[in-house]
């Protein structure tokens, strides 16, 4: 990692700006009361965008070696697997009520 890769402090201001913009978009979208499924899809997508910005630029993962990026990011898919493994059970319980 060197300084030129970071482009000075400007990259942090830009990241901060986009994080705020996405947050305002999230709150604005909630206030228009869209249907629940659309709300969930949009909010989760926007959250993932914010998470990517934080990890890539604030945490500098974008500037690390590719093997390190894989090592850090790949375990996170366990969380996704966990969610999709349990959702059918949750829906099953809901239908049994």
């Amino acid at each position, binding site marked *: 990692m060197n*300084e030129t890769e970071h482009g000075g402090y400007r990259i942090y201001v830009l990241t901060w700006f986009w994080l705020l913009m996405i947050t305002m978009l999230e709150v604005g979208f909630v206030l228009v009361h869209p249907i629940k499924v659309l709300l969930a899809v949009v909010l989760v997508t926007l959250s993932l965008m914010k998470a990517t910005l934080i990890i890539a630029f604030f945490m500098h993962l974008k500037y690390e070696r590719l093997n*390190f990026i894989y090592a850090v990011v790949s375990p996170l898919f366990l969380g996704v697997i*966990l969610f999709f493994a349990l959702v059918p059970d949750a829906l099953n319980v809901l239908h049994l009520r």
Partner: protein
Amino acid sequence: MLASDWGGGHSPFAVNWPKLMMWLFLVQDTLTFAGLLTGYGVMRLSLGRWPVQGEIFNIWLVGFMTFILICSSATMAVAVAAARRGVRELVVRFVWLTVLGGLMFLSMQAYEWTHFIREGARLFGNPWGIPQFSATFFIITGFHGAHVTAGVIYLFITVLRWTRGRIQPESIEIAGLYWHFVDLVWVFIFTLLYLL
């Protein structure tokens, strides 16, 4: 290049040992939060009904808390960059700003908890008829709040040690990783517990 990247050696990831350990800790902590949030999602889906958070929580207050946390993450990022450049004074100023952001966040969270408790919310029950609602709220935001508290203490000690010249820029970067993680987790808590 690819062979050297994957070939192992003394430092196959090209990061120092303390930084690697912090990343490993953050990965496992992410999975802990993923477990909590998945549990929350599964519980909510299986119940089929849930109180309308917009009528219970002050969305503007929580939005401002998010704003503060994002700002504190940005100030920490600047502190890390300044540390790498050797601008010692700037590091001190921006880490203190980050600490201030953390304290502001905690104060607002304390206010929000107090308000929620005064409305009758308890760990095992609440006036909205779904005990899991307040239970998940207290457990998840409490666990995150504990992380923020630990982060504020960690940054406080780090900046004091930096002022006395006892630590290297890498230590500021490692403290920064932890602080950004706190912000990262809040992104999902904000969405799943307050907005959705």
